[in-house]
C-alpha cells in the first residue's frame, strides 16, 4: 500500500487556495442527489453536518448522547486560537503555523497545519456571526489572551466555557438545517460498523440505544467525527461515553490508524482520590499564568507533609522547589503541556509528591493574590476555584491547589490525506478522530480550532471533490454488504450477552487503564511496553471468557453499550503499545526513557523517525502492518525544542 497524502504542489501559502480552485464542484441541482453520513456532533461533526446541509447535500447525523449539544467539545475551557493579530503583537498565519509545527515536535504535516492556521481567522468570524458570546473589551471589540505558553495573545475565549459556547453555535447551525429538513438527526444512536460496497464507504450499521434495534443507513460518503480515544486509560478528562468504537471498527474494515501512541497528558488536573474514581477533571491551563508550581525541596519534608505531621504553611520559602521556574527560566510555569506533565511525574517519582498518595504537586496562587489581590484573581479564575473546592472540599484561596497530570487528548487517530479522507474512498475523519494536525503534542486552544476548521471550511470543499467524481446512484440497505455487517454486529452483541462471566465491564476497563497508564503513559520503555503487550492480550482473552453483561439487546442496556466500547479499547490499547514500541525516539507526548538528553529532555531522531506511523489491521491478535508516510519539512528548520 502506498500512502498518498495528496498534498498539493506549489508554495506552502498557496496550496490551499490552489487546491480549492482545482477541486471538482457538484452542480447545485445535483447536490440533493448525494447523501452524506456524519457520525458525532461535537465541533467537527456538527459544523460539518450543518455546512453540508447548507450546501444542499442530504445529511444524516448521529450521536450517542441524548442531544447533539452534549458532545464532549462542550467541556473545553480555555479558548480557541486564531491568527487574527487583533492585538498587534506580531502574530501571523505563518507564526501560528510555526508554533503548531514546533509544538507538535515536528511530527505533523506542514501543508495541513498551514491550512489550519489560514482558516483559523474565518472560524472566529463565523462564530461571532452565529452569536457566540466571546469575551470583549470595553470598546466592544474582541478580547484575547496568551495561552499555553504562546508568545502572542491569539486565543479567543468565552470565560472558562469556550467549548460550550462554540458547540452551541455549531448546534444552532445544525438545528437550522434540521428544521429545513436538510439534516436528519439521530440522537442516542451508536455506530457499530462501517459498510463498504465495491471498496468504497457506503454506509454504517447503528444500534438505537433506547430500543436496541440494529439498523443500516446508506450514503455516498461517511464522515467520522467521533473524537479521541483517551478513555482507553479508563481515567481521563474525556466524558464517560467518549469512545473509539466508530473509528476502531472503521480501522478493522481497512482504514489505517496513525500514530496511536501520541497521547496528551494534561498537567493541571485534580488528582485521583480513590478507587471509585470515575473520571478526572481538568483545571484550565490558564491557571499556570498566575499559579506557581512547586514541591517540597526534600523527600523528608514531603513525607512529613503527607503524613500530616506538618502543614503546607509550615514549609519555609527556601524549602520549596519551584522546579519549572528553576529548570526552564525562560518559560517557567508556562512550559508546554508535555514538559510540565513529565516534570510533575519526575518530582513524584523522586518521592517529593504531595497529598496522601504522593501523586500530586502544588499549584500555588499565594504570590498572585498578594500581588493583585483576591478579587482580581477571583475575577480571572473564580469559576475554576469554585469547581476545585466543590470536588476537593478545599479552599484554593487559602491553600495551594494540588494537581496531577491526566490523559486529556489523543493526537493520533485515523490516517487521512490532505482532503481528510482516509485510505478508504468515501470515508473521512475530522477533528480529534483524525491524526493530522497536532503531531506528537497539541498546543492549548488548538483542538477547538481544528475541529471547526475541518467541519466548516475543509470538508465542505474536499467532499464535493469526491462526490463530483462518483455517480449519484444510491445503494439500498438491502445490499448484501449491509446485511452481512448487521449480522456481524448482532452476533457480537449476542456473544457479549451470552458469556455471563464473573467480572464486570468496568472491572476490565479499570485494569486495562492501569496497564496503559503504567507502561504507555507519561514515560515508556521497551521492556515495559513488551510486558504491557502481553498483559493486554491476556486481559482481552479473559474479557471474552469471563465478562458479565446482563439483560438483552432489545432494551436500553448500559452494560452492553460499555462492553462493546471496552472490547474495542482492549484491541486499540495493544496497537498503542505496538506503536510506542516501534518509535525508538522521544517526541512530544511520547517519551521513551531510553531516548533522552542528559537533562532529561525528549531526544528526537529526525533521521529515522520523521514519519507518520500508519497501521493496517490484520486480525485481532495478529501483528499489524506498519506503513510509513515520510514527513517533509521545507518551510521550517527542525530544531530541538527548548524552553530553557
Amino acid at each position, binding site marked *: 500500500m502506498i500512502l498518498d497524502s495528496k498534498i498539493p504542489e506549489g508554495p506552502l501559502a498557496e496550496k490551499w487556495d490552489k487546491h480549492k480552485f482545482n477541486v471538482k464542484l457538484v452542480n447545485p441541482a445535483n447536490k440533493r442527489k448525494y447523501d452524506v453520513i456524519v457520525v458525532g456532533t461535537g465541533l467537527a461533526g456538527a459544523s460539518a453536518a*450543518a*455546512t453540508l446541509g447548507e450546501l444542499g447535500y442530504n445529511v444524516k447525523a448521529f450521536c450517542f*448522547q*441524548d*442531544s447533539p*449539544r*452534549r458532545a*464532549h467539545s*462542550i*467541556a473545553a475551557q480555555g479558548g480557541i486560537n486564531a491568527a487574527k493579530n487583533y492585538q498587534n503583537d506580531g502574530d501571523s498565519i505563518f507564526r501560528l503555523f510555526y508554533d503548531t509545527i514546533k509544538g507538535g515536535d515536528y511530527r505533523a504535516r506542514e501543508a495541513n497545519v498551514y491550512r489550519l492556521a489560514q482558516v483559523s481567522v474565518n472560524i472566529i*468570524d*463565523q462564530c*461571532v*456571526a*452565529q*452569536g457566540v*458570546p*466571546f469575551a*470583549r473589551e*470595553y470598546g*466592544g*471589540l*474582541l478580547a484575547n489572551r496568551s495561552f499555553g505558553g504562546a508568545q502572542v495573545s491569539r486565543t479567543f475565549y468565552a470565560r472558562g*466555557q469556550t*467549548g460550550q459556547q462554540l458547540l452551541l453555535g455549531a448546534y*444552532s*447551525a445544525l*438545528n437550522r438545517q434540521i*428544521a429545513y429538513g436538510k439534516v436528519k*438527526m439521530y*440522537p442516542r444512536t451508536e455506530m457499530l460498523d462501517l459498510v463498504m460496497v465495491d471498496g468504497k464507504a457506503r454506509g454504517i450499521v447503528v444500534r438505537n440505544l433506547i430500543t436496541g434495534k440494529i439498523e443500516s443507513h446508506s450514503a455516498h460518503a461517511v464522515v467520522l467525527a467521533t473524537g479521541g480515544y483517551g478513555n482507553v486509560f479508563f481515567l481521563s478528562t474525556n*466524558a*464517560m*461515553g467518549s469512545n473509539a468504537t466508530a473509528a476502531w471498527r472503521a480501522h478493522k474494515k481497512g482504514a489505517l490508524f496513525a500514530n496511536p501512541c501520541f497521547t496528551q497528558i494534561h498537567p493541571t488536573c485534580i*488528582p*485521583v*482520590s*480513590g478507587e*471509585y474514581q*470515575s*473520571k478526572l*477533571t481538568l483545571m484550565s491551563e490558564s491557571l499556570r499564568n498566575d499559579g506557581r508550581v512547586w514541591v517540597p525541596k526534600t523527600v523528608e519534608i514531603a513525607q512529613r507533609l503527607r503524613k*500530616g505531621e506538618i502543614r503546607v504553611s509550615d514549609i519555609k520559602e527556601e524549602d520549596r522547589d519551584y522546579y519549572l521556574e528553576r529548570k526552564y527560566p525562560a518559560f517557567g510555569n508556562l512550559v508546554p503541556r508535555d514538559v510540565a506533565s513529565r516534570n510533575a511525574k519526575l518530582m513524584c517519582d523522586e518521592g517529593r509528591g504531595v*497529598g*496522601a498518595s504522593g501523586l500530586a504537586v502544588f499549584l500555588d496562587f499565594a504570590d498572585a493574590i498578594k500581588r493583585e489581590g483576591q478579587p482580581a484573581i477571583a475575577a480571572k479564575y473564580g469559576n475554576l476555584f469554585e*469547581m476545585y473546592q466543590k*470536588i*476537593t*472540599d*478545599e479552599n484554593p484561596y487559602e491553600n495551594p491547589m*494540588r494537581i496531577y497530570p491526566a490523559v486529556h487528548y489523543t493526537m493520533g487517530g485515523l490516517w487521512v490525506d490532505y482532503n481528510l479522507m482516509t485510505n478508504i474512498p468515501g470515508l473521512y475523519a475530522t477533528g480529534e478522530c483524525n491524526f493530522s494536525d497536532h503531531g506528537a503534542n497539541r498546543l492549548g486552544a488548538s483542538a477547538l480550532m481544528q475541529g471547526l476548521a475541518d467541519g*466548516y471550511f475543509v470538508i465542505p470543499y474536499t467532499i464535493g471533490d469526491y462526490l463530483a467524481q462518483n455517480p449519484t446512484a444510491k445503494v439500498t440497505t438491502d445490499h448484501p454488504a449491509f446485511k452481512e455487517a448487521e449480522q456481524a454486529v448482532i452476533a457480537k452483541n449476542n456473544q457479549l450477552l451470552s458469556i455471563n462471566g*464473573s467480572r*464486570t465491564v*468496568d472491572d476490565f476497563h479499570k485494569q486495562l487503564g492501569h496497564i496503559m497508564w503504567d507502561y504507555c503513559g507519561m514515560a515508556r520503555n521497551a521492556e515495559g511496553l513488551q510486558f504491557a503487550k502481553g498483559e493486554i492480550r491476556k486481559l482481552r482473552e479473559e474479557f471474552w471468557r469471563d465478562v458479565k453483561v*446482563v439483560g438483552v439487546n432489545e*432494551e*436500553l442496556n*448500559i*452494560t452492553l453499550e460499555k462492553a462493546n466500547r471496552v472490547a474495542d479499547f482492549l484491541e486499540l490499547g495493544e496497537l498503542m503499545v505496538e506503536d510506542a514500541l516501534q518509535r525508538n525516539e522521544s517526541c512530544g507526548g511520547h517519551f521513551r526513557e531510553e531516548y533522552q538528553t542528559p537533562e532529561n529532555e525528549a531526544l528526537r531522531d529526525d533521521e529515522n523517525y520523521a514519519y507518520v506511523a500508519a497501521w493496517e489491521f490484520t486480525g485481532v491478535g495478529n501483528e499489524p502492518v506498519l506503513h510509513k508516510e515520510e514527513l517533509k519539512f521545507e518551510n521550517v528548520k527542525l530544531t530541538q525544542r527548548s524552553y530553557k
Partner: protein
Amino acid sequence: MAGSNPNAKPMDLTLKVWRQKNRESAGSMVTYPVKGISPDMSFLEMLDVLNEDLLRGGQDPIAFDHDCREGICGMCSLYINGRPHGPERGTTTCQLHMRHFNDGDTITIEPWRAAAFPVHKDLVVDRSAFDRIQQAGGYVSVNTGGVPDANAIPIGKSIADKAFDAATCIGCGACVAACKNASAMLFVSAKVSQMAMLPQGKVEAKTRVENMVAQMDVEGFGACSNTGACAAECPVGISLENIAIMNREYLSAKATSEHVA
C-alpha cells in the same frame, strides 16, 4: 486523599430509586442499601458503586443519564430528595459530592417528572422536546462563509456579558423538573434573550420568539406562574430576568406580527 478530610468516615445509606423498565411499563420505587460510601465520592460515583454490586449479583443496573461529569454537558438529571440535582445550590448532580449527606440517611432518587419528558428507562428521560424548541428558531440564519470580520460587529462589554450569562444554559431540564407546572419558560427565555440582546440576533428576533414559544406549547410544557422555582434550582444560575425579557419580546412581536395566527 483529594478531600481535606482524610479521616471522614465511610457512610451507610438507604437509597429509594425509581425503577421503570421502559416507556410503556409502570415504574415503582425500589429500596437499595449501600455501604462504605466515601464522602469524597460524587453522587454518580456512589451510583456506580451500587451498579457494580447489582451487576455482580446478576441484576439490571440502574440506568441514568450522565456524560462529562464536569457539570457542563447538561446530561445528568436526577431528582434527589425532591429537588432537581439535589440539595446543593448551583450544582449539577455530577458535581454533587457525598460529603453533603450523613451516615444513615435515606435518599430518594427519581427521574425528571414532566409530561414533555417521558421516561425511557429508570432515571433516563427523553428531553428531545428541548432540541425541537431550539430547531424552531434558536439560531441566527447565517450560512458558513460570507460573514463580516468578527470585529466589524462591536458589542458593548456589559451587553456581551449579559448575553453570555443567558448563553450558559446547559439544557439539563432542571427548570422544568422544579416547576409545579413543568414549564420550560426559563430554558426558552435564556436562548431568546441571549439572541435578542445581540445585534446578530436582532434581525430575526420577532419570528424567533414567536416560533420558539409556539413549539414550547406544542411540546406540552406548562404555563409559567412566576414562582421562580426554576431559577432557584438552575445549576448554572440562569436569571428569572430572562423570562421578563422573553415576555416583552413576545408581546412586542405579537403586536406587530407578520404571522396572522
